[in-house]
């Protein structure tokens, strides 16, 4: 789907799009939301530009591959576009959009599960791996992640990689904050256990 894409580390807490303004314009997110609700496609395009990176990160934390994350992001924006008139513009658009994208990603995971149920059990999908990066530690971590439940994996990635709080994660995944906290705890414990034999010189 995409060629020649590099994946270097991201800063832990990038600027939240909710607070951002479109570069080169004085318009705020709320202005764009209101204009988009009145039918302005260019305003919605500005919202896409402001939020698609964050939406990708949310989707990527939930699905197992880069390609699925792209699909979930597109699906999420499509749902948001169709439901835009029901959105209350006094709410943060980013949080609303992220919930929609998270739901699209969860749907995708469910559909993949049903589809993969008939396939061989050895074909466990691993998170995206850069073909040039084949070191043992990375492989072991990717493999260890497949032993977590979908929700635990999503929670640990959303928290530790994307910097979301337990409450935000709970809202996105439709679970109580305490459950997100507990999932994070269990995911960390599981990864520690699964990687205990991995040595730094391996």
């Amino acid at each position, binding site marked *: 789907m995409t060629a020649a894409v590099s994946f270097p580390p991201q800063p832990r807490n990038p600027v939240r799009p909710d607070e951002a303004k479109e570069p080169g314009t004085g318009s705020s997110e709320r202005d764009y939301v209101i204009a988009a609700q009145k039918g302005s496609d260019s305003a919605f395009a500005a919202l896409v530009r402001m939020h*698609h990176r964050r939406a990708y990160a949310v989707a990527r934390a939930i699905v197992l591959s880069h390609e699925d994350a792209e699909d979930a992001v597109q699906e999420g*924006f499509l749902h948001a576009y169709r439901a835009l008139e029901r959105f209350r513009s006094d709410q943060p658009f980013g949080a609303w959009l992220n919930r929609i994208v998270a739901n699209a990603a969860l749907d995708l995971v469910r559909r993949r599960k049903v589809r993969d149920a008939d396939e061989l059990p050895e074909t466990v999908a691993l998170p995206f791996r850069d073909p040039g990066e084949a070191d043992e530690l990375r492989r072991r971590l990717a493999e260890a992640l497949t032993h977590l439940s979908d929700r635990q994996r999503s929670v640990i990635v959303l928290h530790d990689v994307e910097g979301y709080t337990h409450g935000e994660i709970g809202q996105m995944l439709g679970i109580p904050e305490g459950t997100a906290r507990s999932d994070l705890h269990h995911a960390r414990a599981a990864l520690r256990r699964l990687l205990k034999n991995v040595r730094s010189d391996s």
Partner: protein
Amino acid sequence: MSDHLKLHPTDGGDERRDDEIVRGLRRLYAAPTGDDYWRGLEARILSRLTTPTIAWWDELDRWMRPALAAAAVVLLAAGVAVVRAHQVQHDVAYESILAPTPHPVETAVRPVLQEPREATFRYLMTSR
């Protein structure tokens, strides 16, 4: 490059291990960089909005609510009709048991011709 992922199980506690795991996770889940990629994704999102391919499940999803509401109304109407019909049937049956028969059946008994005189008369009539 791989030093981000090195784990040290023997010389540190859980916190250090967690830090190392987090660094590894960030490498695995890092978003693509390069403005070209993001411009491309943005273009794909927007083209999907402007020319949406309406899949059958999308169409189904759109009609789901009205269809469910219509089905609920039909079911309710059918339920009311069935209950009413049953009630009417029950009332008729109940009344038919209790109410007196309007026209009692009168049984007509045919007289048996046994008299010898009548037998003779019949013989005469049939022998012609």
